[in-house]
Structure formats: structure tokens, C-alpha cells
């Protein structure tokens, strides 16, 4: 056999004889050939210089009709008009793997007449395209993207996403100011401290104080604005929070320092003002940064549904927006299209892909009288169906709104630090007031009493308390991410540490998700190439598993005729004049071969010319580390439950293999989530781990949702934690890290409270001299930071 040759477009390697030869170039498929010629014609061949050594995915060719994109309904929903009167749309471009792909898309689009501006984001592959609708239509733009081997779908730039972006930018600006001022402040403080010990002229000290004043002002009033806002909202709801303490503390310190500066007496504390605000602001920012937006999740969901459909009314075919379709309308669906509304087939038959709803990868055959469900895809059928539920009540929309509810009402376990800071802040403010009144009554010296009261707030100012949680979680998060565990939100470490129950999905989470061959029998010798050629024509996971199992370099692909995929049974084809059959026992019986199914595994038989040649038994094996990981998690005192949509037999087998005592089987996605709700009602904190679309509702309703790294995009979006390594040991580790981090948070809070119980009475008694206040303030923060770093012990990478 000859050597493999790389396709000129996608660089994937194949045998010479299966490739399309075209001059000096070789292509693996027509798609690649088409893209290659297009790029050459457009003068974009520089793309191939930029993608050396990168393999691309060959372009797929099943697309919905792009004319849909020109429908008025579509324009209403996604297209905006710019100031100049151009149109603008936001698209997500699929198939981008590298910077060169972005380059190619931008180049190809801007070369089109009528396209005014393109801006493709390298990070999330979202594109903004501005065009002149008189010169080019949106459908042509999308056709162009498809022609060069990518796919694009529009998304609704929701308010939520825009808001999140604006918030992030706002933080950047405030932090930039804060850090700038803090760093400059530090250089001035070097002189101040040196002067404190070795003497400094009063004039220079005064000038340095004024410099600090200048630097501290924007930090307090610009960078610190969120704290004042937080305090204001806190006052409105009559609650005292961390913001109150930070805002009053820093504001009073600032006023006190101005007083000191102007009267040239004592020490100013402008540095504390900037430090406190900078530290706490950065901590706040880190938390905001990790918050995921629900908006993105729903984008992915709703892109799967078409926005308008062809409806037969009064013997005419009209295009209607999905919202305008009524129950009882007749809708036309062509092969390759998605179903938008639930209905019942009244004409035609064919196979449907329901994987987006059920997770079952096997296509299902449907005919007149069968119901079709929204979001499923018609693979090869042109059918008419009668709508039985309007758009708002169709299955997919139902799931989207359930999901929305579940994510918005996600149970929030109140964070320990927040609760503590509320009490703490109230107590400190009361103590300060009490101190003032006490000293005033005792000495009748307003100024002196006021300064001592401020000292109480300054010394208690919650640097250590505010840092206790963010620093510890940051260390926890960094350890986790080094081990392939991504926590999307810092607060989740604490929630996860309090977990009581772990609910696991079976397929793809406990098991590998693809069936493996566990038993193989050959009844007679045969040419593997025959079986291989047959299997290549099926997309069923069993066929895929066997074809990779028997794959050898010298296999040849035979030309087969009369291919038939028989749903949930197998596949048949003709090779020359003889029949090839591959499938389960039922299919064998229909062609007259008597086999009896006895195994609890999935079976696949192969027959050729009416004679049985081989039998394979397949089983979706648990992951290698499942047993040890589950044992370890159990040891931590966490109850484990397996939830699966599969039937009892295989659920029982997997559960007993990995050592899970409690399992629920044959659950629909809704039932899974109801089960988790039930656990919530028992006041349990539930962690759910899953990977598929059928788990998303359950994931969204759990306290902590964990997705496997190779799970479906939507599951990853919904979840709080992603296990990139895709193994169950990381699941155990994520529990371990979160428990450790939580323990550290508690220690930190304890430390800062101890520090405060010592210093506050001293301050109240008027004993705190400026130097001790400054030193102890830094010391307490250092203590907390240093303590947090201890989480790292025992995790050497």
C-alpha cells in the first residue's frame, strides 16, 4: 500500500487511492477541494502559509437554506441599524481553530462588495459585521462564510451580556486608578517611614502628606465608588455590610488624615485609604470576573431552533415567524432542517436525529401519525406535520425556560464571610460610637474623643477580614486549575465544601460514554475489509467502536450498493451480488439466521451472503479510575447517587461495578432535576456531575454542577465546575481542594477576629500609637495571605 498523502486544504492524511487528484493537489473530499479553489480564486492562498502544520476540519455540507436569513422576521430579531444607516449583525462563527482562520474570515468578508466592517473576536469567535443592505444581503455573507469552510449563526446580543462587559470595563478603569495611586503612594511612604525613624523636617513631611492627599483622593472617590454605592443600598435595606465598613472606614481615615495634614500634627493615613480600597476592590473584581453569564448559555440553546418556518395556509406556502404559527397549522420540513414546533406527521416519513434532546445518538425512524419534537433534526425526510403545540409551549422552548428559571433561582448558600462581616461591621460601628460617647463624657474633649473613635474604625478596618476569603479562594482556585479543575466562580469552593450528596450521571460520566468491545467471536475467516466498508456507512456508536477496533492499515474500502440503515437494528448493503448484513439479533432473524440474544451487553452480528461470520459484544465500561474515586469520595462522608436515563439492567451492572449502592434509572431530564429538587427539600447540598444535554436541567438545579471536559457545550456552560482531565479522580480532588480551602477561610477569619479582639480594646482605651496601628494593619494582612498559601502544601506540581 502506498504512503498517506495530506489533503491540500485540511492537511488530514489519507491513502492516495481514496483522494481526489486535482493537478498537483490532492483533496480528501469535494468540500476541501471547493474551499481550496475558492481561496485561490479570491487570492487568499496566503491562508495556507499561515496554517502550516495545522490540521483543519473538512468543511461540512449539511446546511439549512441560507435564504431564511433574509426573512423579515429574522432581521427584526437579530439585525440592528447603525447610525449611518448600515445594518449590523452579531454572528458566532463555528470551525475557527487558529488565528489564521480569523484572518481568512475577515479577509474574505471585507473583500465582498457591500461589507463595510468586520470585527471577529479571537477569544470567543463572535463576529460583528456591518454591511450595506442595498449591495449585499445577509444570506450572501453567510454563504461566503460557509463557502470557505466555516459556519455562522446569529446570536442575540442580549442586555445581560452587554451589561456584564460594561461592568468588567468599569472595574478595569477603577482598578487602574487604584493601582496607579497605590504604587506611587508606596514610593512616598518609603520616605515617610524613613523620616519617622531617622527624623524628617516638618516642611518636607507636610509636602509628602499633600502628595499623598492628591493620590488618595481619586482612589477614594473614583475607585472606591462601588463601596459607597453598596453602603447606600445597604442603608436603604437597613442592613450593614462589608461595603459599609470599607466605605466608612476609609472615608473617616481620609477625613482624619486631612485634618492631620492641615494642622500639621501627628501621622496621616492616606496610604491605608488607598491600600484598603485597592485590595478589596481587586478581591471584588476577581469575584465578578468569574461570574458566568446566563446569556451565553441561552444563546447556544436558542440558536438550535429555526426562527421561521414554511406553513401551508389556504393551499399556499407562506413563510411565517415561529411565534405566528398556530396550533393546527401544517408545516413543511425538508431534509436537513430542524423542527421548530412540536407536532404530528401527516405526510412523508424518514429518520430523525433526536440526540439534542435525549442524548441517544441513534437516529429514529418516524412515519405518518408519529409525533415530532422541536429541536430534533430531520436527517433525510421531507415531511409535513400538523402543529400540536405553539412555539412557546414546544418542548425545546419549555426546556429553555425551565433552564432559565433554574439558573436564576439557583440556590445560594450564604457565604460565611459575608454573614460574619455583617455582624462584625455593625459591632465595630457601635463600638466606635460608644468609644466616642465614653471619651467625650469622660474628658469633655471633642477633638480627642473623635480621633480615638476614628482610630477604632481604622484599626478594625477589615483589611484582613476582607482578604480572608478572596486570598484563600484564589490559592484554592489556582491549585485546582493546575490540576485541570476549573471553578467558574470563587464562592463555589465554599459551597462545594459543604456538599452532602453527589449525584452522578451514568453514560459519559461514570462510564466512558462509548461502547467498548468486551467479547469477540469469529465463526469463520473473512475479509475484514468487507466489514469495515459496511461499518463506515453507519454513524452508530457501536459501528464506530467496531470499526476502530478492527482497523488496520491494509484495509480497503469496497464500493457498496443499495445501502440501508435500519433504525435500531443495523445496516445492510450489497457487495457485487452478495448481501452484507451487520446488526443485532433481531436483524439476523429477519434474514433467516437464527441467533439468540442472551448477553446483557449490546451485541453486533456480521453476516455475509446469508452466513454468520462474527459476533461482537459491546459494553460501555466504567472509567478506569471510577472505583477508586468513588470509594474516596464516599470516605469523605458524601452520599453518592447515580441518576441515569438508561434501563435498569445496565444501571445495575455499572452501579455494582463501581460500588454505588443507590441508583435511579429510566429518568427523563425533567425527572432528574425533580429528584435533585427533592434532595434540596431535605435540606441537602447537592453536587451534580454530568456531561450531556439530557443532564442540563439537573445540572442547573443543583447547588454545584460539574461537567466533564468533553461533555456537550451546553452542559459545560451550565455548570460551575469543569473537569478538563475528564476523569473521576479530579472529581475527588475538587472535593478535597474545596474542603481544604474552606478550612483555610475559616482559619483566616478566625485569625483576623483574634487580631481585632486584641487591637480594638487597645484602640478604645486610646493606647494605639500611630506606628503600631500602621504596622499591625499590614501585619494582619500578611498573616492572612501567608496562612492562605499553606493550602498549597501537599500539592506539589
Amino acid at each position, binding site marked *: 500500500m502506498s504512503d498517506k498523502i495530506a489533503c491540500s486544504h485540511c492537511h488530514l492524511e489519507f491513502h492516495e487511492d481514496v483522494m481526489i487528484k486535482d493537478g498537483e493537489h490532492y483533496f480528501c473530499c469535494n468540500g476541501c477541494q471547493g474551499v481550496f479553489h475558492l481561496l485561490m480564486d479570491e487570492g487568499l492562498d496566503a491562508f495556507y502559509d499561515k496554517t502550516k502544520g495545522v490540521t483543519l476540519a473538512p468543511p461540512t455540507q449539511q446546511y439549512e437554506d441560507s435564504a431564511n436569513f433574509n426573512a423579515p422576521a429574522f432581521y427584526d430579531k437579530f439585525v440592528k441599524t447603525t447610525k449611518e444607516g448600515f445594518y449590523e449583525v452579531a454572528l458566532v462563527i463555528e470551525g475557527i481553530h487558529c488565528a489564521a482562520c480569523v484572518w481568512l474570515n475577515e479577509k474574505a468578508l*471585507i473583500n465582498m462588495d457591500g461589507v463595510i466592517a468586520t470585527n471577529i*473576536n479571537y*477569544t470567543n469567535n463572535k463576529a460583528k459585521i456591518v454591511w450595506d443592505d*442595498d449591495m449585499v444581503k445577509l444570506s450572501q455573507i453567510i454563504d461566503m462564510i460557509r463557502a470557505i469552510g466555516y459556519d455562522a449563526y446569529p446570536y442575540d446580543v442580549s442586555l445581560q451580556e452587554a451589561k456584564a462587559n460594561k461592568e468588567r470595563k468599569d472595574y478595569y478603569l477603577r482598578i487602574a486608578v487604584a493601582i*496607579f495611586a497605590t504604587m*506611587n503612594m508606596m514610593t512616598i511612604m518609603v520616605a515617610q517611614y524613613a523620616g519617622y525613624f531617622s527624623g524628617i*523636617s516638618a516642611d518636607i513631611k507636610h509636602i*509628602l502628606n499633600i502628595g499623598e492627599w492628591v493620590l488618595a483622593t481619586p482612589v477614594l472617590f473614583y475607585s472606591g465608588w462601588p463601596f459607597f454605592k453598596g453602603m447606600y443600598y445597604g442603608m436603604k435595606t437597613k442592613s450593614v455590610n462589608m461595603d459599609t465598613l470599607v466605605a466608612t472606614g476609609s472615608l473617616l481615615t481620609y477625613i482624619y488624615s486631612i485634618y492631620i495634614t492641615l494642622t500639621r500634627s501627628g501621622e496621616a493615613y492616606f496610604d491605608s485609604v488607598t491600600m484598603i480600597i485597592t485590595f478589596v476592590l481587586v478581591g471584588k473584581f476577581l469575584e465578578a470576573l468569574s461570574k458566568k453569564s446566563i446569556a451565553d448559555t441561552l444563546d447556544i440553546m436558542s440558536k438550535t431552533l429555526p426562527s421561521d418556518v414554511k406553513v401551508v395556509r389556504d393551499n399556499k406556502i407562506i413563510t411565517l415567524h415561529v411565534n405566528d404559527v398556530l396550533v393546527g397549522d401544517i408545516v413543511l420540513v425538508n431534509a436537513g432542517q430542524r423542527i421548530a414546533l412540536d407536532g404530528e406527521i401527516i405526510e412523508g416519513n424518514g429518520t430523525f436525529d433526536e440526540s439534542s434532546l435525549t442524548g441517544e445518538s441513534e437516529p429514529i425512524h418516524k412515519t405518518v401519525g408519529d409525533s415530532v419534537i422541536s429541536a430534533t433534526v430531520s436527517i433525510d425526510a421531507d415531511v409535513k406535520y400538523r402543529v400540536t403545540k405553539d412555539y412557546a409551549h414546544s418542548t425545546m422552548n419549555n426546556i429553555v425556560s425551565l433552564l432559565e428559571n433554574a439558573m436564576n433561582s439557583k440556590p445560594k448558600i450564604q457565604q460565611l464571610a459575608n454573614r460574619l462581616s455583617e455582624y462584625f461591621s455593625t459591632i465595630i460601628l457601635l463600638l466606635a460610637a460608644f468609644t466616642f460617647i465614653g471619651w467625650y463624657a469622660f474628658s469633655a474633649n471633642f477633638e480627642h474623643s473623635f480621633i480615638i473613635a476614628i482610630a477604632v474604625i481604622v484599626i478594625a478596618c477589615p483589611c484582613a477580614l476582607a482578604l480572608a476569603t478572596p486570598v484563600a479562594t484564589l490559592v484554592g482556585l489556582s491549585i485546582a486549575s493546575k490540576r485541570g479543575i476549573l471553578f467558574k466562580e470563587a464562592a463555589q469552593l465554599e459551597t462545594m465544601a459543604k456538599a452532602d450528596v453527589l449525584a452522578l450521571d451514568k453514560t459519559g460520566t461514570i462510564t466512558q460514554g462509548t461502547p467498548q468491545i468486551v467479547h469477540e467471536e469469529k465463526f469463520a475467516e473473512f475479509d475484514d475489509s468487507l466489514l469495515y466498508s459496511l461499518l463506515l456507512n453507519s454513524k452508530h456508536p457501536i459501528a464506530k467502536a467496531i470499526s476502530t477496533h478492527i482497523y488496520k492499515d491494509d484495509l480497503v474500502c469496497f464500493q457498496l450498493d443499495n445501502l440501508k440503515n435500519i433504525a435500531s437494528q443495523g445496516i445492510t448493503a450489497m457487495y457485487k451480488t452478495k448481501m452484507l448484513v451487520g446488526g443485532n439479533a433481531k436483524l439476523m432473524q429477519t434474514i433467516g439466521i437464527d441467533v439468540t440474544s442472551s448477553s446483557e451487553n449490546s451485541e453486533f452480528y456480521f453476516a455475509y451472503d446469508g452466513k454468520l461470520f462474527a459476533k461482537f459484544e459491546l459494553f460501555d465500561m466504567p472509567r478506569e479510575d471510577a472505583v477508586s474515586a468513588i470509594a474516596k469520595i464516599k470516605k469523605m462522608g458524601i452520599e453518592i447517587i447515580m441518576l441515569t436515563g438508561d434501563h435498569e439492567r445496565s444501571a445495575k451492572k455499572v452501579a455494582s461495578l463501581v460500588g454505588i449502592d443507590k441508583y435511579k434509572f429510566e429518568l427523563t431530564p425533567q425527572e432528574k432535576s425533580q429528584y435533585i429538587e427533592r434532595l434540596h427539600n431535605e435540606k441537602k447540598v447537592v453536587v451534580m456531575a454530568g456531561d450531556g444535554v439530557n443532564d442540563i436541567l439537573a445540572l442547573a438545579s443543583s447547588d454545584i454542577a460539574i461537567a466533564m471536559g468533553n461533555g456537550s457545550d451546553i452542559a459545560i456552560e451550565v455548570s460551575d465546575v469543569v473537569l478538563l482531565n475528564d476523569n473521576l479522580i479530579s472529581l475527588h480532588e475538587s472535593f478535597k481542594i474545596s474542603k481544604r480551602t474552606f478550612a483555610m477561610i475559616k482559619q483566616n477569619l478566625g485569625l483576623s477576629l483574634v487580631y481585632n479582639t486584641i487591637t480594638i480594646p487597645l484602640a478604645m482605651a486610646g493606647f494605639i500609637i500611630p506606628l503600631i496601628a500602621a504596622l499591625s494593619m499590614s501585619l494582619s494582612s500578611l498573616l492572612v495571605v501567608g496562612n492562605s498559601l499553606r493550602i498549597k502544601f501537599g500539592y506539589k506540581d
Partner: protein
Amino acid sequence: MDSWVIGMMLGVSIFLGSIALVAMMWAIKKGQFDDKEKFLNAALFDDESELNDAIKKEKKREDALKKKDYRPE
């Protein structure tokens, strides 16, 4: 050293620093740091043809705008 020298140096350095700070804030507001990947990859695609493209892009915008203005309503 007279204390006004310190004051002046302090003032000048804070002023210079704040110019840089304002420039950075302007860049953040304009969205120059929105796409971190683009920031890095820009170095890969930075030759003559990209410059020409940028000019072409601007010209196209102007042309399209002109055409819009002349169009009879």
C-alpha cells in the same frame, strides 16, 4: 535641599504618571483590550497587505456613505 524642590518633583512626576494613566483609561474605554487573543495575534498578521486592507476598508466605508447620501429618497 529646599522643600519646594521636593514639592515640584512630586507634582511633576504625579502629573506625568497621570498622563500615562489617562492614556490607558482611554484605551480601555475604546475597547483596545477587549480581545486578549487579538492583541497577541496581531503581531502575526502585521505586514504590508494588512495595512493596505485597512486603507481599503476605510475607503469602502466612505464610498458606501457617499452613495447613501446621493440616493434619492
